[in-house]
């Protein structure tokens, strides 16, 4: 496993040209939640826009390493158009898949997220991937209880 394997083209491409990223506070979303990794100072804010129990759009804002930014960017593409329920399920799958590498079996992830798979080998970077997913799960919960 070399750096080139980890920083796959897809991942780098998302890092260099993040989708759905805002430079300013996310406006008019149904819910906005923040995730922070105090251990390295990274911060991601996720805002969700809902329509008919579906995720119409996700925007993100924040600073972080390449993996953190790419994961957030890929997230916004992966869940756009999904139902809220399957999005929530995807958050849980990501959490299981990255949070506990000894235990989890390979889940069925959308192809669009496969580029993140290489990060699983790097325990220290798992939080970088998960930061945005945890904020997303949180935002869904917030919207549901609103």
């Amino acid at each position, binding site marked *: *496993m070399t*750096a080139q394997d980890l*920083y796959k083209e897809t991942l780098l491409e998302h890092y260099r040209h993040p989708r759905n990223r805002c430079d300013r506070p996310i406006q008019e979303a149904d819910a906005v939640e923040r995730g922070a990794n*105090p251990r390295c100072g990274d911060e991601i804010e996720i805002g969700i826009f809902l329509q008919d129990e579906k995720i119409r759009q996700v925007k993100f804002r924040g600073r972080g390493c390449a993996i953190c930014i790419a994961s957030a960017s890929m997230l916004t593409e992966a869940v756009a158009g999904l139902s809220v329920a399957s999005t929530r399920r995807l958050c849980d799958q990501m959490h299981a898949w990255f949070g506990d590498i000894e235990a989890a079996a390979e889940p069925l992830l959308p192809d669009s997220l496969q580029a993140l798979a290489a990060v699983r080998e790097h325990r220290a970077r798992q939080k970088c991937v998960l930061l945005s997913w945890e904020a997303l799960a949180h935002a869904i919960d917030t919207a549901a209880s609103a």
Partner: protein
Amino acid sequence: MSDPEPINPEVVRRDFPIFAGASHRQRLHYLDNAATTHKPDKVINAIAACYAQCYAPIHRGLYPMAEQATSNYEHARRVLQHFIGAASPDELVFTSSATEAINMVASGWLRQRLQSGDVVWVSRMEHHSNYLPWQRVCHEKQAQLRFIELTEDGQMDLDRIPELFAEPTKFIAITHVSNVLGVQNPVASLCATARECGIPVLVDAAQSVSHLELDVSAMCCDFLAFSAHKMFGPTGIGLLYGRQDRLAGMEPLQLGGGMVDSVVDGTSAASSWAKVPSRFEAGSPDMPGAVGFAAAADYLSSLGHERVGRHIAALTRLAAERLMGINGISLLPHAELPASGIVSFTHRYIHPHDMAQVAGEAGVAIRAGHHCAQPLLRHLGLAATARASFSVYNDESDIDALIDAIISAQRIFCE
């Protein structure tokens, strides 16, 4: 006296088995020495010999192997006593780490003396281990924890705080060398002034012990703490030095076997503690750890602190110069070029995590993060830095490899 011969890192590396596999695998460019150092054969073998040849409980057995094991343990204490220039072996407490040593002083010494309105000072550059214990005790006692802030070039700004040495200051805890800035603080003069004013000082020597000669008598500190694992010794053991009168007034953090003289029933009266330092070493002592610790001190002394210090200073300066030559890299604020084995830096476009990852995969071990110094990083306006730190086995080829890795990272992230 003529100049001592310089350290030859190639020869030194032969003492460290971790570098022996180098031909089979990628050469290891280990530049994370501020986190922990590798161990020479002498230390590894000393520990193994304790288990394989002379192992027994300490301070209790009446059979020959138990007497020998006890005397090996106490001999280790004496070796370390001389290593730090303490007046008596009774001033040395074996702990599980520098962190535990500092916690002992915060909870066992300061806690019973601190009152609402008192002030405890730490510097802005402390490691969490020399910050959180003081924060907790201040919070509990409604005392104030205050920072000695830094000048623009990363030095403690002692001139701006005349109140440091005055009422209501009750304690000062200060690091000898910063694990992020690499700056060396003027602990001796600070301790001297503090002693005149009757203010006790704890010096965190975790980052200095491996390359500066420590002399607690000359330094005039009241307490000093460090870990074996950052000076070529084993993990799981550290040291608290405390001046005799200070230790005599400290409550033990842990109670249990070996630290008590007479134990009463119930809760009416108090049990009476054993004498210092046994009082602070509850539970079965870590004899092999202590012996390995002493072997590390002996190893360091055999290299010579003077030579080690020079070697590390030269490498650090060279690394700093070469890093400054790379477009996009900034070093952290500094007055002179860092000489204490530590260079921290950031890159305009590359996050430290990504930098460390790419370096790591090229066989260059550097650290990225807040280095357990969040108050300092917040002050610097940074979330994380990359850090390279040097030891006796490093040489210029490690710096070359680091620079190459940074160039690869630029190729990945800045095209």
